[in-house]
């Protein structure tokens, strides 16, 4: 190759390289903008609220006096609602995904179900709240309770759990299924001995992502009528009722009124006294921390479990 050709070639390569540089610089700029905004919000929230975070903040009920107000009823409420949500969404979601992916024949009926699941994931959460108000509160008379909230949020994250489980099942190579069938396994044995075990990391990730979404949901919880000011805890099983003197049943807490973290934050933010805004910032910090720890747990679990699954 003569030197003129080499020079022309180098010119073309240099141009291509300049594009590479430009695109990576642009990407970095946009990325840092996003991270910067997030970090600024988080740091502002931390600075405003950090002074309020102490043991009393977690053990006090909300109060008219901002310095004494705490998040006891709301973090307990969030925890209990999350428990009901997981109890609803996890078995239903996994069972639905296994049916769709492993048992159902591919026909128009299953295609319609699939499209609906995808669409459900995009329905605004307030719609779930309205559905729950009509169905759980008015029709089934479950009240404005922890049970209603858990069922509502369970429905809300069901598509997330189903989709994650299906992806995890699809990632299992067909030759693993064939190997199990060739040993004489029945379909349920293939599912329970193999597919469920190998898809656990993916399912867990989906469940925790769904739960992280549910813990921050406000609109559907307000719609079903959660209270904004709650100065008592749901009755623990066996706890004596002060008015009646009767011990609470095992499941009485399910039907108790409640509040959750996002509602408490909303309530404090809407007050004029700026000291309540500090409380809101502190509660937000706790909520963000809860969400981030759930995500961290998901990442760690996925890493731990995937180490043992190779094809």
């Amino acid at each position, binding site marked *: 190759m003569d030197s003129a050709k080499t020079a022309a070639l180098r010119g073309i390569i240099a141009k291509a390289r300049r594009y590479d540089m430009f695109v990576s610089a642009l990407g970095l700029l946009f990325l840092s903008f996003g991270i910067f905004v997030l970090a600024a919000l988080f740091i502002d929230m931390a600075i405003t609220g950090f002074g309020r975070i102490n043991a009393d903040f977690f053990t006090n009920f909300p109060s008219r006096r901002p310095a004494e107000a705490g998040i006891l009823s709301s973090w307990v409420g969030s925890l209990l609602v999350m428990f009901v949500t997981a109890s609803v969404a996890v078995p239903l979601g996994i069972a639905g995904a296994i049916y769709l992916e492993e048992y159902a*024949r591919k026909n128009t009926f299953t295609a319609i179900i699939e499209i609906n699941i995808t669409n459900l994931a995009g329905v605004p959460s307030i719609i779930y709240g309205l559905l729950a108000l009509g169905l759980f509160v008015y029709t089934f008379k479950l009240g404005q309770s922890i049970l209603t909230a858990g069922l509502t949020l369970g429905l809300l994250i069901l598509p997330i759990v189903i989709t994650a489980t299906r992806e995890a099942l699809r990632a299992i190579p067909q*030759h693993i299924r064939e*190997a199990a*069938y*060739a*040993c004489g396994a029945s379909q349920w044995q293939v599912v329970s001995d193999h597919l469920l075990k190998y898809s656990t990391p993916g399912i867990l990730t989906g469940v925790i992502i769904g739960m992280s979404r549910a813990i921050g949901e406000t609109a559907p919880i307000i719609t079903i009528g959660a209270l904004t000011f709650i100065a008592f805890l749901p009755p623990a099983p066996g706890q004596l009722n002060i008015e009646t003197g009767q011990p609470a049943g095992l499941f009485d807490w399910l039907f108790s009124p409640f509040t959750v973290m996002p509602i408490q934050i909303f309530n404090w933010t809407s007050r004029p006294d700026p000291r309540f805004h500090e409380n809101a910032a502190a509660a937000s910090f706790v909520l963000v921390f809860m969400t981030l720890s759930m995500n961290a747990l998901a990442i760690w679990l996925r890493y731990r479990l995937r180490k043992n*699954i190779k094809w």
Partner: protein
Amino acid sequence: MPSIITLPQNPPPMKAEAKNLSFFYGDFKALKGVNMPVYENKVTALIGPSGCGKSTLLRCFNRMHDLYPGHRYDGAINLMPDGVDILHKDVDPIEVRMRISMVFQKPNPFPKSIFENVAYGLKVRGEKNRSVLDDKVEAALKGAALWNEAKDRLNELAVNLSGGQQQRLCIARALATEPEIILFDEPTSALDPIATGSIEELIGEIKHKVSVLIVTHNMQQAARVSDYTAYMYLGEMMEYGETNDIFMKPKRKETEDYITGRFG
């Protein structure tokens, strides 16, 4: 084209027999009226160019096709000594797979321990007695020439074994349940020559206990390991006979062309 089937003069006992077997994927006829015997404690090799239907025929023997929609069997495979037609719709494919096990093209151990892999077939047969499991797993691993390498790491993950060891583990898994026939679907195509040699040696060993049906792309392999060879082409059984005859004096021009490498 009529198949040329040369049965041996003093045939050993029959283990299974495909009778006028046709198989359809949807509308596509992948097997066209195949007839073939499988003799007891002998190795039968299926050879032929890609797409000739040899794997399809093999997968009829354990009803693997039943896992996928759009399959249809026509004809019969009679399994001796009871003569049950394993393709009949009243015969549960699980029953067939409990009598006939399979080793696949790519080693496919479960992401479980070595012990659990070998014991899995026993587990689905309801075996729970730990000492029985221990004995049978040991016997199967010895039968697959893997015991010496695996005995100290039975609880380690099977996927950490080398490719050749993984395939021997899959053979142990297939042997553990004492099947009547083992199907091999190109068992060495993903392995290096040394691992291939040890698998071929193993097939020569296990035929004393079980009948073997093997699909292979490798003509030398068929010549080395098998007692009988079937040459297939476009879903038809072209020629069947003793391996020596098929390789030394094939009756058909097409068989000769394929074996000598002029075609395929």
